């Protein structure tokens, strides 16, 4: 299972995209029970591509909530293959693909 859930719907030539990524988004300011700081760990970059063309890209700071939600809209059509990928501060990446409805 990918960590990303995407919903993409076309209406009047505009594709509305909603996505939800599963990630702890540690700020580096929180402390655990023993009072030690939990190291920061967050998604830095998110890129969205429709049929291989970049339609949206975003950079997050640690101030984005846990399990980030992201929504945007681009000019597109039904059947577009939409791919969203992220990269976090630990260098991990994940991506998911969906078909625009």
């Amino acid at each position: 299972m990918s960590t990303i859930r995407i919903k993409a719907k076309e209406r009047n030539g505009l594709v509305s995209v909603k996505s939800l990524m599963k990630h702890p988004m540690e700020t580096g300011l929180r402390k655990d029970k023993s009072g030690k700081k939990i190291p920061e760990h967050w998604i830095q970059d998110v890129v969205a591509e429709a049929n291989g063309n970049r339609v949206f890209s975003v950079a997050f700071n640690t101030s984005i909530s846990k399990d980030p939600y992201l929504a945007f809209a681009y000019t597109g059509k039904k059947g577009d293959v939409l791919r969203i990928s992220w990269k976090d501060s630990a260098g991990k990446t994940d991506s998911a693909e969906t078909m625009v409805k």
Partner: protein
Amino acid sequence: MDRRSVIKAAGIFTAAATAFLAMPRWAFAAYSQKAFKQKASIDALQNLYGSSATTVSDKITLKAPDIAENGAVVPLEVITDLKADSIAILIEKNPSPLAIKADIPSGTQGLLKTRCRMGKTTNVMAVVESGGKLYTASKEVKVTIGGCGG
């Protein structure tokens, strides 16, 4: 430098160049670490756009709750009629104000929705970059931590 060391150096250089070219082309933009680590909004803008001169615009709508009961999850929405090149959100009283920066290629709407963390009651500023200029809209969000309702 004698001939041998020149040949050796050239060999190393070629190997390095090949390794560089063989790397998968990285799809992500260069992460602007410096701008995100700034402790003041002005410095963050300066690092992000190279300028902190902004104009207040009524063509930007920033939707945020008046009172956020849970500072860990505050829904924010920026909509603009301007031809946006990028949209950024700054939360002024957070440890590092710059929360998010979105690049908007042509064909994509000037729209950004997400959820942010806020440490305390603060001004939220939406910045839209359009034609090399910065336009802003801001709103104050009251944060009541602990859910006691203030």
